[in-house]
């Protein structure tokens, strides 16, 4: 199983492309898959850190971490794969309205004849039409994108990045945060609420990782301790989360790459084949129904007879 399969890439649809193009496309999607797996892992680790502070239990924290990591991985996968559209490609004209394809490749003219041919023949017609369509592909790199959907994706991922950046930084600087919390504990009087309930562990639930019961105090310790470095670390994690989205939207190899075009052709081909099959079996079923010589008025007479009997 290829790494790119993890984000839903079907490399079989690139069979008709030159080997070097296929190799490059698989290399790219393998790279993106690996990035997404790392982002999922960072999210899982970060969620585990948050859960450790909240629940003081490795079992619960790992469970939450794995769940959140999987959610983020799948969410990102969804954002990436639905971001692969055909804006700027001539295929868009056929992909969003398949009738254009049928019309241009004389598939409408076959409506009355398809029943005479085997399914394999119909499949061959659909493939031929697809191959003709492939030869018509041209790309306009300057085609505008839907900025709103890009903004929504970037905003959601940036929000997640900032949230998980904090968890990662808490893990990285856990020792230093504990020292800062220890200093704070020395300053506070023992009867202070923070001292008693936030900085003192429950006898049954010892602290794990961070010696505090409060996420907010941990954030405060992290932000105070790191100062301006906190911003730089956040930006680093933000950049890590943003790079796959940037690749999808900015890299011509992905945005207008061979895989995206082949995927669109594959979808058009499938629809075309099913269109022809549907035409064929509509004709067959229509012919069979007509051969049955059904009496559609029989039930109406029966009802009338009942009515007559009742009145008599």
């Amino acid at each position, binding site marked *: 199983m290829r790494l790119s399969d993890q984000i839903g890439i079907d490399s079989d649809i690139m069979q008709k492309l030159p080997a070097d193009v296929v190799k490059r496309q698989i290399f790219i999607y393998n790279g993106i898959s690996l990035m997404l797996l790392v982002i999922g892992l960072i999210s899982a680790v970060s969620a585990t850190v948050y859960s450790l502070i909240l629940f003081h239990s490795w079992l619960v924290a790992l469970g939450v971490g794995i769940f959140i990591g999987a959610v983020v991985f799948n969410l990102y996968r969804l954002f990436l794969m639905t971001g692969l559209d055909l804006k700027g490609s001539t295929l868009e004209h056929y992909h969003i309205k398949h009738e254009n394809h049928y019309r241009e490749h004389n598939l409408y003219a076959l409506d009355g004849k398809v029943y005479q041919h085997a399914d394999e023949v119909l499949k061959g017609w659909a493939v031929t039409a697809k191959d003709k369509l492939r030869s018509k592909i041209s790309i306009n790199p300057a085609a505008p994108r839907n900025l709103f959907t890009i903004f929504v994706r970037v905003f959601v991922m940036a929000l997640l990045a900032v949230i998980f950046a904090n968890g990662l930084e808490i*893990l990285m600087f856990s020792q230093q945060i504990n020292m800062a919390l220890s*200093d704070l504990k020395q300053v*506070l009087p023992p009867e202070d609420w923070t001292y008693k309930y936030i900085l003192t562990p429950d006898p049954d639930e010892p602290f794990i990782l961070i010696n505090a019961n409060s996420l907010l105090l941990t954030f405060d*310790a992290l932000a*105070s301790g*790191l100062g301006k470095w906190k911003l730089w670390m956040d930006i*680093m994690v933000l950049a*890590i989360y943003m790079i796959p989205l940037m690749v999808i939207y900015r*890299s011509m190899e*992905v945005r207008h790459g061979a895989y995206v075009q082949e995927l669109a052709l594959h979808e058009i081909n499938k629809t075309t084949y099913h269109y022809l099959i549907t035409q064929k079996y509509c004709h067959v079923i229509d012919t069979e129904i007509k051969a049955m010589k059904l009496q559609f008025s029989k039930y109406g007479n029966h009802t009338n007879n009942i009515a007559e009997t009742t009145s008599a």
Partner: protein
Amino acid sequence: MTREKKYFNVSQLLFWALIVLLIVLSFLKSDLGLFNENELSRRHAEADSLNKIALQEQEEQEEEENAQDNDPENTIKRTWKWESFDGKTYTLEFTVPKKAYESARANRLKLPPNPNCWAGMFRHDKAGLKDMVEGYRDIIEEQKLNYRQAMQMVVSSAQNFDYTYITWSREPCRNIRDANGEKPAQDCRPKPYPYGCCDNVEPFAVYSPLEYAVNGAGDCDTKSLFAMSILKYLNMGFDAEMLMGEVEAGHHAMLGICVPNPPQRNLSVRDMRTGKRYYAWECTQRTNAAELGAPVWQIFKNWEVVPIR
């Protein structure tokens, strides 16, 4: 490599470089000194006055010990005599421990070269000025001064000494010229015109309140900081802060007081943190902002309140 290929390759490289950097940082964090463990407790103490006392306990204890040193050989004795706005002449005798004076100077040199140093001096000098503050308190109680009279008495004492230029290494006395183009006298003592000038007062060309109490040499920020500090140390409900901004003579500092029913003509600055309005009181001249309203400046722009805690 084509430009198309470059984009993905560079992005991928950047991604892994950032991951490696994060891993390296997590190992080298201690060596790089990215994290300041003391900052949380310091900020907490600043935010909570009770805990601030606890955090600074050791420092203040040391200052108290200095202040309690009554040996005449180890103290500096000063007598101030001045006339307040009520026409009365007040006399204040006080002592300052020599150690406290030296400590105030040493503390000043450690502070940042910006207005934040005012708060550092204010916090440090409290113990050393204990005797002086008690003297002010005695005057207020003996003379039965009301709120405004007490404030005027304190500020007039700060205004009493002649103006002295306080400069730092960035702008030495030899470069100073007054409005008439006159050079100041090469004498770091308060004296009538031409005024004296103190060179190399680092880090921000301002003396601490305790140094002003001993030497009497001060310009706008030194005098304003002294008056504000005494008003705060008295702990009798005076609401005073430092103001900084620009006037026709350039950058300037004044004392800010928050008083009910102030004179309408007075210049004022709103503290955006608290919403309070502080009225500017010029401390380098004999002006009585608390009652008469005496704006001495025509240009008054970019002024802000510098909270001193």
